């Protein structure tokens, strides 16, 4: 028998390994046909990705949902309120040490936030009012979207600052789901010093600052500077530019009215709440507007020393799909954009997919 040379043998082994790897890779693709393939895409790029056909749909916050609908690129499959009525969304969070060192400053900041939110709710109640027109102008500037998109998006928004019972329940439900999905382990709850999810929510959300803020009165004294974190063009966080706007406050901003100087935190605006939490940890952010989901997740998993002080909005997200998609089932085997794995939007997708018995993979 002819002896096979060592070099030939090595070459044959090499080729067999390469072919096996390629074949094995093919086997794993099969599973993808049954599941929705979630891919992380920055919300600002989602409309273009949907338009190019790279993704069949996406879940995002406003105005990135209405942007595609008004632009004729996609349609709304589900508003987030249909998936989880009144679900918690954006909140005002604070770095704990900053709050304990500057309690008055924090309360005055919250008072401006409360007043801005109330002003927005009133403005939205009458879309023929001057306040509504001003609100739309501020929103157009903040989101860099045109008026039609902003008006459509605003019609899906519910702005609220109170920490309601529903908010507590929603946050607890979310935390329980995080554990069920194995994104957070039970160990992390106890590692952070909480007995269970209920104890965590009770301690992580501190309503005393908001209660005290209700009694805060305008002041001409400057109480200090707050470095504020917020997300890029997120219409949920419209209370921030509203409280900064001098026209809203009748000549000076609501922050100025309550003696607070605000400055954008280093790196802000951020692309998602997870990034903002990293900047909290880096010491760049004192107070911030962000999703309750990343605030909870990164506090539990990474121990970032923050707490929630007020709500900013609830609902206001949606699942947007290409015209050819009529149900969630049609999304199986297709790419679907999510803003990140720490967001409530990803969580909403998991919830509705679970309801319809569809797997979400990547």
């Amino acid at each position, binding site marked *: 028998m002819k002896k096979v040379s060592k070099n030939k043998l090595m070459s044959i082994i090499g080729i067999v390994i390469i072919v096996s790897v390629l074949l094995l890779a093919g086997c*794993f693709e099969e599973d993808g046909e049954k599941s929705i393939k979630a891919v992380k895409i920055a919300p600002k790029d989602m409309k273009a*990705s949907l338009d190019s056909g790279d993704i069949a749909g996406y879940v995002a916050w406003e105005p990135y949902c209405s942007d595609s609908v008004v632009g004729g690129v996609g349609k709304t499959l589900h508003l987030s309120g249909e998936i989880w009525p009144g679900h918690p969304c954006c909140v005002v969070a604070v770095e704990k040490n900053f709050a304990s060192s500057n309690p008055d400053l924090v309360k005055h900041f919250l008072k401006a936030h409360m007043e801005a939110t109330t002003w927005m709710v009133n403005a939205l109640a009458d879309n023929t009012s001057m306040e509504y027109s001003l609100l739309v102008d501020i929103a157009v500037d903040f989101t860099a979207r045109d008026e039609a998109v902003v008006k459509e998006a605003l019609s899906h928004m519910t702005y609220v600052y109170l920490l309601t019972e529903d908010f507590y329940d929603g946050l607890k439900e979310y935390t329980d789901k995080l554990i069920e999905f194995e*994104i957070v382990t039970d160990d992390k709850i106890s590692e952070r010093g909480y007995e269970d999810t209920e104890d965590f929510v009770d301690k992580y959300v501190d309503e005393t600052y908001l209660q005290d803020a209700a009694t805060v009165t305008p002041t001409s004294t400057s109480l200090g500077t707050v470095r504020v974190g917020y997300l890029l063009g997120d219409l949920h966080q419209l209370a921030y530019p509203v409280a900064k706007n001098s026209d809203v406050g009748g000549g000076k901003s609501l922050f100025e009215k309550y003696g607070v100087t605000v400055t954008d935190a280093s790196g802000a605006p951020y692309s998602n709440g997870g990034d903002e939490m990293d900047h909290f940890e880096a010491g760049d952010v004192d107070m911030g507007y962000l999703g309750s989901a990343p605030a909870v997740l990164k506090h539990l998993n990474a121990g*970032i020393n923050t707490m929630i002080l007020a709500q900013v909005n609830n609902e206001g997200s949606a699942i947007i799909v290409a015209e050819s998609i009529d149900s969630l089932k049609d999304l199986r085997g297709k790419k679907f954009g999510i803003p990140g794995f720490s967001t409530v939007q990803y969580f909403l997708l998991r919830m509705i997919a679970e309801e319809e018995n569809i797997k979400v993979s*990547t």
Partner: protein
Amino acid sequence: MNKKASKAQKNRTFFLSFFKVKKNRDRLIHLGISILAVIIFILAWDLYAQLQNKPYLPRPHMVFDALIASFFNRDPFSQRYMGEHILASMVRILYGFIIAFILAVPLGLLMGWSKHVHNAGNPIVELIRPIPPIAWIPFAIVFFDEPFDTAFIVFLGIFFPVLINTIFGVKRIDPIIIDAAKTLGVTKRNMLQKVIFPAVIPTLMTGIRIGLGIGWMCIVAAEMVGVTGGGVGFYISAMADVGRYDDMFAGMIVIGILGFITVGGASYIERRVSRWMGMR
């Protein structure tokens, strides 16, 4: 005379065994230094992590635990084991490498051999080469389907080092060798196949080694954005997203080990091919 020859033989054996022992001893010393350096690195990491006491920098034993767990537990996002993530990344690297190799080697040989081809290709190469491969990610996502979108990023990382080293390899061939081959009547095809290509192999392998290193960097960056089908880069990105930094570091270590094995493998192949072609 026989006695003399036997003595010379004895001396030769003695010297050979002496050098063999010395060589083995040197190898052991080198290995010992490397192991010691790794141990010192891990201890320094552990000490610094303890001083910092932040989840952003987990201690080595936590990362080790997360690494082991990742092979036995599915991740909560893609429902894949680490082995599957490794496979997904390796397939992308493999596609990128194969395409880069098939295109870069012949092009490099031609550009090194022919002034006209060099003059035509060089401006385009020099224009595209400085662009970081990750800058092409949005383009790749829209224009290619899985796995070729990420493989394209890897391709860019590997293509240029292989191309440049192939061109360099051709240019550094001693003209006397070329002249001698011409004098002996070697055909153009044989010149390329039997004279130039073997001479280029050492620099080509250097290009492959460098390219594979860059390829691993590219795959991680590419998998962090808009990828389906998992991958170690995806794993790192998703875990960072939700603040599971011990798992994130575990993924980073996997990339390091895979890169080390791949580049080590390229070095091994380089030695074997060089020996096979009579270069060593």
